[in-house]
């Protein structure tokens, strides 16, 4: 499980310590290229249709207006604040369900050498390769059979199930690295298995919990297919992604609606990313096995 550890920051290993001018130029130009779409998104969210179409790159303070941004925020068809609320609740609930069921399971699998549990681990891991968007059609019928189709709990359960294989895989690897003598000591003191997990193992799992939380949150926040198919238009529930699809998809020629709506949709995740980029990026490196 060396893959879960963060690469140690590397000191320049005796190689030439300074970059050449060509290097600065290349990296600078590439960074600009990566940022141009973001620049266009931000600048054009404050302009009128005429200015967007004729001078998309211009940044003239006299032409800027917050009117369209306010309109997008108050759009009667897509209440962005409500979309945030649903998406945020989704992120929290999926993580709560996934972590609650995965931590004990991973503990038992990691600590037992019985064949049943080794097979169980393989069974969970094989789930990592099921393309989740593709099985949504049969998932709809399963959820309908238990009466959870088109409901928030149904969506939470499905999304949690898609995170289980990877979560158990990573947790099991992590718990195996924790010394067994810790839980033996707790057991001698009379602690049951749940107590050992809750009071001994869980506090030691903080780094891996953070990694998994970040990875799961990112994929839940950005998922579109699951809420689109499971919630459907009839439920009245929408996430940021399905709301953006419903409001931008129809009016994609009206740039005064497109740019402000998209900006409002990405702003929180970008702010969170910039503030936490160190953890997000090292967490993703650790989780890269997920593919």
């Amino acid at each position, binding site marked *: 499980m060396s893959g879960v550890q963060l690469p140690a920051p590397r000191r320049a290993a005796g190689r030439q310590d300074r970059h050449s001018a060509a290097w600065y130029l290349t990296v600078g130009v590439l960074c600009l290229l990566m940022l141009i779409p973001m620049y266009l998104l931000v600048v054009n969210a404050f302009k009128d249709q005429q200015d967007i179409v004729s001078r998309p790159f211009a940044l003239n303070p006299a032409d800027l207006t917050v009117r369209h941004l306010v309109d997008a925020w108050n759009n009667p068809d897509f209440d962005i604040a409500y979309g945030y609320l649903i998406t945020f609740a989704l992120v929290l609930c999926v993580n709560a369900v996934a972590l609650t069921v995965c931590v*004990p399971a991973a503990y038992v699998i990691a600590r037992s050498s019985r064949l049943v549990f080794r097979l169980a681990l393989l069974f969970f891991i094989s789930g990592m390769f099921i393309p989740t968007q593709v099985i949504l059609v049969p998932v709809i019928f399963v959820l309908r059979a238990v009466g959870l189709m088109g409901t928030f709990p149904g969506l939470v359960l499905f999304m949690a199930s898609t995170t289980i294989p990877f979560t158990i895989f990573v947790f099991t690897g992590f718990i195996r690295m924790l010394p067994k003598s810790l839980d033996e000591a707790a057991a001698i003191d009379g602690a049951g298995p749940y107590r050992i997990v809750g009071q001994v193992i869980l506090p030691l799992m903080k780094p891996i919990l953070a990694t998994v939380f970040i990875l799961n949150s990112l994929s839940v926040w950005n998922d579109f297919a699951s809420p689109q198919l499971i919630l459907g238009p009839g439920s009245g529930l929408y996430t940021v992604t399905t709301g953006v699809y419903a409001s931008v998809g129809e009016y994609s020629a009206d740039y005064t609606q497109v740019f402000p709506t998209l900006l409002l949709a990405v702003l929180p995740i970008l702010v969170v990313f910039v503030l936490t980029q160190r953890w997000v990026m090292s967490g993703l490196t650790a989780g890269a096995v997920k593919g």
Partner: protein
Amino acid sequence: MVIPAMVVFVALLVVPVGYAVYYSLTDYNGFPTQQPEFVGLDNYQRVFATSDITQTMMVTAIVAVVGSLLVNGLALSLALLLWRTTRLTALARVVMFYPHVLSLIVVGFLWAAILGPQGAVNSLLDSLGGSPLPFLSDTTWALGTLVCVIAWAQFGVQLLIYLAGLQAVPSDLLEAARIDGASRWQTFRNVTWPALAPSVTVALVTSMISLLKTYDVVVSLTGGGPAGSTKTFAYEILAVSFPKREVGLASAEAVVLIVVAAVLAFGVLAMRRRSDEAAS
């Protein structure tokens, strides 16, 4: 203690796969009043004999293969550029990575607005006296645009993988190569690449597997058009067959995709094992 996880996992991930196999052998419109009617392998025959559907397979194959080559090529070259950890490379990594945290549905709409007939790029070309380019309105261009947009949005993760992989390059060998006066290319070819090659193969196939599922960005960037030229297999399942209430057909398509993904995944595991053995 394993049971709760097992129940959620089996009920919502394993059982649906079973359902998919079952429905794929039936004719079913999804209404509770209708009984699925057993039709044998008819749906699979339709999957492989309908030219609309085989075209979506071609598109998906192109997206997966060209897309993963592009993503990994970009990621590897940038990883080599941003190898050393300085304040500037740390910033550049964040800049290279940020599209990954945006949802693909937003990425698609954003690029559609930038590359559309009235979009920023064509407006710029127009003011420079050039003629507009059909980024999204020509069938060949649209597929190319789709692949490039996916690469723009996705290569950040592979970049991180390669940056981590570069830590494994033995620094004493690099030092030795420098002292012996090896050129940059010779150093890359003989020192860096051999240390990196196993992770490159794995990264290529894992990104291919994830590109097989391409759906969101098609919905927002092209809607599958023009003339179905950017319809991927997952788009066909979720946005064409299912809305037409062809549950049997959609399930057969899903099974085909699951099998392809499983074969590729098995290949990755085999390759991992082989490279682990080679390393030890």
